[in-house]
């Protein structure tokens, strides 16, 4: 058990290091420099990749047409909610409700 907790602590410390070092180290001088740099493009590109990494497995794990339909309806409902009002929190709620209503 001690070895497990030492491993947990090492992973936790290393994870924190990967999160904190760039935040403390990288400080671009002003917005103009950020606007024109690749770092400005990095965030949205990462976000698109993360979205696919989260959404795609919900389809590949589906066990039947109705589950795929529920997932599709939930995603479309979340998108429609964003179309009406740009609020990711509301879109999450709307998507979950739509998924729940349609799911088998």
């Amino acid at each position, binding site marked *: 058990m001690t070895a497990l907790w030492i491993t947990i602590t090492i992973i936790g410390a290393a*994870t924190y290091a990967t999160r904190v070092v760039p935040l403390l180290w*990288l400080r*671009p001088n002003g917005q103009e420099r950020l606007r024109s740099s690749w770092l400005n493009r990095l965030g949205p590109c990462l976000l698109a990749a993360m979205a696919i*990494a989260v959404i795609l497995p*919900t389809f590949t794990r589906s066990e039947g047409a109705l589950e795929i339909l529920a997932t599709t309806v939930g995603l479309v409902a979340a998108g429609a909610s964003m179309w009406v009002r740009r609020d*990711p929190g509301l879109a999450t709620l709307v998507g979950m409700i739509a*998924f729940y209503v349609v799911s088998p």
Partner: protein
Amino acid sequence: MTADLDLRAGMRAAMPIAAAYLPVAFALGAASSQLGFSIFESALWSAIMFSGANQALLLSGLASEVPLVLLALLAIAASLRHALYGAALAGRLDASSAGRATFAYGLTDEVFATTLTAYEARDRALPSKWLVGLAISALGVWIIGTALGSAVGDVLQARAPGVSAALDFALPALFVGLVWSTARQSLLGRMLLSGALSALMIFLGRPELAIPAGALPALIPDRKTG
């Protein structure tokens, strides 16, 4: 500082993340019984690691009798993607070193996405209080969710599977909202390419490379105009 970016606003911004985290933390908490953890130890485990991917890796690795040293190395390698998040956000924060250090403890995939979305919506640097409110709320929900999962997770999964499945859907729905908020015309091509590369890695059976591969289109330079 304006009120729309204070501590409470940061906590409010964490609410969609909370909806997405609860079921995952629940499941991890319920599964942590196989490590012989008490409720307190489950909560402590989440407080120290605060990474669903790494915690799931630890659970599955131990079940497969993978050596702890190898598990630690794999987890650290998987965590390197966070360096990209820090790099992308560093210039978008108007925070002290203490604020950045506190925020960094909670810089998960979803906290990164929410922070980026908030910046894009306001087009100005985000202050310490908002960042700390967001990250600490997400961490708190994660810890509470794991503890609850350890206590009652198995019971909920068995008695209300429909609700449990709907909670699982919170994460995909959240990402629809976050991507929609961030997408802009000048980056649409690169974002589509990022998504395609991510999908390719998943179909090739290398999901751990999906996010790093998705970072590559950011290196494509802007087309010169005029």
